[in-house]
């Protein structure tokens, strides 16, 4: 027969026990902090985005190269889709569970680079040759004066075109200096019924080249976002006409905004704007021959944007020296040669770019060289995640003709400039 007092004691102890269990479940296990001596086996987690099985396999092969060179280092590869990668990275940073090796894209450097250790100490102490990498992408991955990630790829945004569609409608392939008028004409010739000449997206990466080639800008001279200038609205409006006026592009939905290459791979679209990093997916999925052409020339020429990505060491890793060794292999010449051959990376290492060309499609080298001569680095702001999401969303209405480009860009500008 339990007395009231005794019973309350039992209840209280169950409560306390439950509290202890819950807090112990939540506590992260502390790694023993020891810099590697080269004999202790070490498992480093490496977080990188991917969009297909081919990509995952390429990265896992890369990771095995690290173990081949440094047998005590094992890499545990973690991945998610590209949009979710940034969400996860930030939440992991806030909860103190960042992986050891983290990947960084040049567009996201202003926003996320604070999670990455400056690499200068390792470069200097190991006499690492940074000049082997392309200078534009090194600049792209630099934040507050220090390099935050070793680049593995870079590339301009270019046009991928479906040769079978061009043949079907007897349209000559694009030349290296083709104009926007030719581009529009070709697209119109290929747009009948279910076939479209182009697939347009509101993702700024794919339409800013057209805007820049028309003389527009999206940043002020000191790097602040400026979407309200009339040249940009005009350029975006003209781009949107491809969808709602000329009907050379099908209307897409919000989840498809970042996935227009997949739509193109289906085979009924003539052209898409994409980058050399997608060659691996296109070669395995597209059942047609395709070619690469630079962005068609507009009033100011053919100005594309160059972006790229790399791998860095997280600020919270317990094994920074081992992580450095790992990323130097992941971006080393063997790995770069492999990634270039597979078509996953237009190599950031200048010497290895030839392997991408060798295994790309015919004519790719002319197209890429042409694109690179006029290209500018893709400079972004620290809140670029927000900027690009809002442009994606509002821009969709512009593509459908439901809103004017000026109004859409104005509303995005208001929302992102600290309103």
């Amino acid at each position, binding site marked *: 027969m339990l007395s009231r007092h005794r019973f309350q004691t039992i209840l209280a102890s169950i409560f306390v026990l439950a509290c202890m269990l819950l807090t112990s479940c939540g506590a992260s296990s502390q790694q023993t902090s020891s810099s590697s001596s080269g004999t202790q086996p070490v498992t480093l987690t490496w977080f990188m985005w991917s969009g297909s099985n081919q990509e995952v396999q390429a990265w896992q092969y890369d990771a095995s190269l690290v173990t081949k060179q440094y047998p005590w280092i094992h890499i545990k590869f973690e991945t998610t889709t590209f949009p979710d990668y940034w969400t996860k990275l930030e939440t992991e940073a806030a909860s103190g569970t960042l992986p050891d090796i983290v990947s960084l894209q040049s567009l996201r450097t202003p926003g996320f680079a604070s999670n990455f250790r400056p690499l200068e100490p390792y470069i200097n102490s190991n006499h690492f040759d940074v000049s082997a990498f392309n200078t534009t992408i090194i600049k792209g991955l630099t934040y507050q004066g220090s390099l935050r990630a070793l680049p593995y790829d870079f590339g301009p945004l270019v046009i991928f075109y479906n040769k079978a569609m061009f043949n079907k409608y007897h349209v000559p392939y694009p030349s290296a200096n083709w104009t926007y008028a030719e581009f529009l004409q070709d697209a119109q010739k290929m747009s009948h019924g279910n076939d479209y000449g182009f697939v347009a997206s509101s993702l700024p990466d794919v339409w800013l080249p057209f805007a820049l080639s028309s003389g527009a800008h999206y940043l002020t001279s000191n790097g602040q976002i400026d979407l309200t200038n009339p040249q940009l609205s005009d350029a975006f409006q003209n781009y949107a006409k491809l969808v709602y006026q000329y009907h050379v592009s099908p209307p897409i*939905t919000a989840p498809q905004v970042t996935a227009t290459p997949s739509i193109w791979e289906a085979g009924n679209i003539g052209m898409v704007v994409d980058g050399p990093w997608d060659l691996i997916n296109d070669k395995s999925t597209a059942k047609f021959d395709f070619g690469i052409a630079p962005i068609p020339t507009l009033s100011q020429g053919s100005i594309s944007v160059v972006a790229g990505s790399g791998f860095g060491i997280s600020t919270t890793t317990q094994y920074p020296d081992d992580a450095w060794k790992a990323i130097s292999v992941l971006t080393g010449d063997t790995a770069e040669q492999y990634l270039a051959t597979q078509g996953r990376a237009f190599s950031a290492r200048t010497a290895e770019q030839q392997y991408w060309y060798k295994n790309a499609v015919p004519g790719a080298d002319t197209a890429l060289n042409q694109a690179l001569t006029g290209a500018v680095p893709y400079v972004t702001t620290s809140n670029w995640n*927000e900027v690009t999401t809002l442009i994606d969303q509002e821009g*969709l209405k512009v593509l459908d003709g439901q809103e004017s480009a000026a109004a859409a860009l104005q509303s995005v500008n208001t929302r992102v400039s600290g*309103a």
Partner: protein
Amino acid sequence: MIVKQPDTDQTSVDRGAPSIHSNVSRITAKDRRRLRHSKWREQGIAYLFLAPNILGFLFFTLFSLIVAFGLSLFRWSLLTPPEFTGLGNYIVLLTKDPVFHQVLLNTLYFVFGYVPLNMLLSLGIAIWLSGPIRAKNLFRIIMFLPVMTPAVGVALVWMLMYNYTPSGLINQTLAAVFHIQGPNWLGSDTWAMPAVILMSLWYGFGYNMLVFSAGLQAIPQHFYEAAAIDGAKRWQQFWSITLPLLTPSLFFGLVLTIITSFQVFDQVYILTLGGPGVDTTTLVFYTYQNGFTFFHMGYAATISTVLFLLIMVVTLAQFVLQKRWVHYEV
């Protein structure tokens, strides 16, 4: 709900004189102690059974609510330390945010579109399945299957069906059978929200159907027989017997459906990502976007607190109004 022992009515016990019923024993002090112990024992056992639920509520719901409300008083972008802004976030949300009123309207659009259709559909099917149908339980299971499927899986399949480029199942059917060119369902400002509502209807009607079926089965048959004897037709029986006696289940279904429809997220995230523009951005999606895409954590907490208050007010209003239309006693 704590099971209470009936209190021994001490005033009715006459200690001195013999009681009216000679076989009723007198309540002694020892008896009173035993009764008190067993009362606490029953209460204690009840608490033990409730403990997991209460602990879960305390830790995962109440604690999170309080933290979220606290977070809404700060500006925090996850990587920088939080800075206190008091009610600044609320003021921005209600006066300066160019999008919040649209988000609120979208949510109300969804609620007023989804809830009545859901109630009508599930009630209609529950009534149909309460009639003389063979294998009605099999039908009930089939109709409940969507509810048991993960929302994300359902939304992915519906996204493929709604596809415009290339044509999904819905547009292909419209073209082949009705010779109509279907719209870009998920990218059109007129059709995006109806598309989300339609998918939610298919997904969610089974739950209320089950609740109403149970409610229908609880109505005693003799009412119908008595009414039939009095000459009431089927429709009159439905209107005067079925509906009033079903009001408790209807109330339960209505309250839950309204609460969950204010919280719609999964479908929006998969089908439309809140687009086109902000045409399908609902309150919870806006919270998610502010918190995990834009990393304005304090602002996201503000939106979720406002949503919490909104749902609370609506639910309280419903509970107050129930006296007017819900009949609990037969």
